[in-house]
C-alpha cells in the first residue's frame, strides 16, 4: 500500500506536489516587495493630502483629475505589492476577474453619474427667469 502510494504520488501527481493543501498558503511574499509597496504608498498618499491641505492647485477640475490619478496609481501599487497580483497566479483567472470588475465598476459609476446629472439638468431647472407675478394664482382668484 505504502509503496504503491509513493509510486503513485511520485509518478502522476509529482507536477502538482503530493499535498494539494500546501498550495493554499498563497503566493510567496518578500520583505523588499512589501517595503517597496509601503514606501510608494506613503509617497502616493502624502502628495494628494499636501496638494489639498496646502491648496496648491487652484482650479477644481485640475485638482480632481490629479487626485484621481494618484488614487489609481496607488490602487495599482497595492494590487501588485500587497495583493501580489500578476497575470500568472490561478492561471490568469484572478487577473481576468479583476479586469471584469474594473470594467463593471467603471460602467456602473460613470453611467450613474452621467444619467443622474443629466436628469438633474433636464428635470430640475434652476428657473433662470423667474415667472413674473403678473397673474394671480388660480386658487386665490375671487369666485
Amino acid at each position, binding site marked *: *500500500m505504502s509503496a*504503491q*502510494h509513493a509510486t*503513485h*504520488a511520485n509518478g502522476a*501527481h509529482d507536477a*502538482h506536489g503530493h*499535498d*494539494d*493543501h*500546501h*498550495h*493554499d*498558503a*498563497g503566493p*510567496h*511574499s*518578500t*520583505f523588499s516587495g*512589501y*517595503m517597496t*509597496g*509601503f514606501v510608494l*504608498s*506613503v509617497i502616493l*498618499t502624502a502628495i*494628494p*493630502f499636501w496638494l*489639498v*491641505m496646502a491648496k496648491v492647485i487652484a482650479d*477644481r477640475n485640475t*485638482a*480632481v483629475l490629479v*487626485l*484621481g490619478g*494618484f*488614487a489609481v496609481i*496607488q*490602487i495599482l501599487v*497595492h*494590487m501588485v505589492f*500587497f*495583493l501580489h497580483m500578476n497575470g500568472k*497566479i*490561478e*492561471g490568469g*483567472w*484572478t487577473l481576468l*476577474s*479583476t479586469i*471584469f*470588475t474594473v470594467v*463593471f*465598476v467603471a460602467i*456602473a*459609476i460613470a453611467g*450613474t*453619474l452621467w444619467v*443622474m*446629472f443629466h436628469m438633474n439638468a433636464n428635470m430640475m431647472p434652476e428657473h433662470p427667469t423667474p415667472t413674473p407675478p403678473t397673474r394671480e394664482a388660480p386658487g386665490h382668484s375671487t369666485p
Partner: protein
Amino acid sequence: MSDIRIHAGAAAGALAPREYHLAHEPHPENGTALGFWLYLMSDCLIFAALFATYGVLGRSYAAGPTGAQLFDLTLVAINTAFLLLSSITFGFAMLRKQLGDVKGTLLWLAVTGVFGLCFLGLELYEFSHLLHEGAGPQRSAFLSAFFTLVGTHGLHVTFGLIWLVVLMVQISKHGLIPENNRRLMCLSMFWHFLDVVWIGVFTFVYLMGVL
C-alpha cells in the same frame, strides 16, 4: 484498504494492482484564493454602488453643512496612516508565517489589530463628533451617502478585526497548520482590500469634498 486493492489486482489477473479511480480529487491548485478573490470582487461592486450614490448625492447639502466645513483632514491623514501601517504589519505577519514562526506571526497580527482598532476608534470619534454637531445621516442627502459609504467600510474593518482575533486564537491553539495558513492568506487579502477601498474613500470623499 490494501486487501481490497490486492484482491482487485488478482481478479484482473495482473501482477501489479490496478486503480480505476483517481487517488486525489482533481481540483485546481489554490482554489481557495481564487474563490476568495471572487468574493472580494463582488464586495467591490457593493462599494461601487455606494461610491456612485455618493457621487450623485455628494453635493446635495440641503442647506446644511458641506464637506469643507465638516471634514478635518488632519484626522483623516492620521486615520489613513493607521490603515496603511496595519497593512504593512500584516505583510510582516505573512513573512513570519512563511518562516513558520508562530510567535512572530502572532506578534505582528496583534500589532495589525492595534492599528485597526486605532483606525476604528478615530472613525467612531469622527462620527460622534459629526452627530454632536447635528450633522447626522438625517441632515442631508450628502450626509446620508457619506455615513453609508464610510460606515460600510468601517463595518468591514470591524468584521476584519473580529476575524483577526479569532484567527489569532486558532493559530495560538493549533499553530501554523495548512488550514490556518489558508485562513491567514484569505484575511490578508481581505485586509489589503479594505486598504484599497480606503484609498477611494479618502480621495473621493474627503479630499475632493474639501476642494
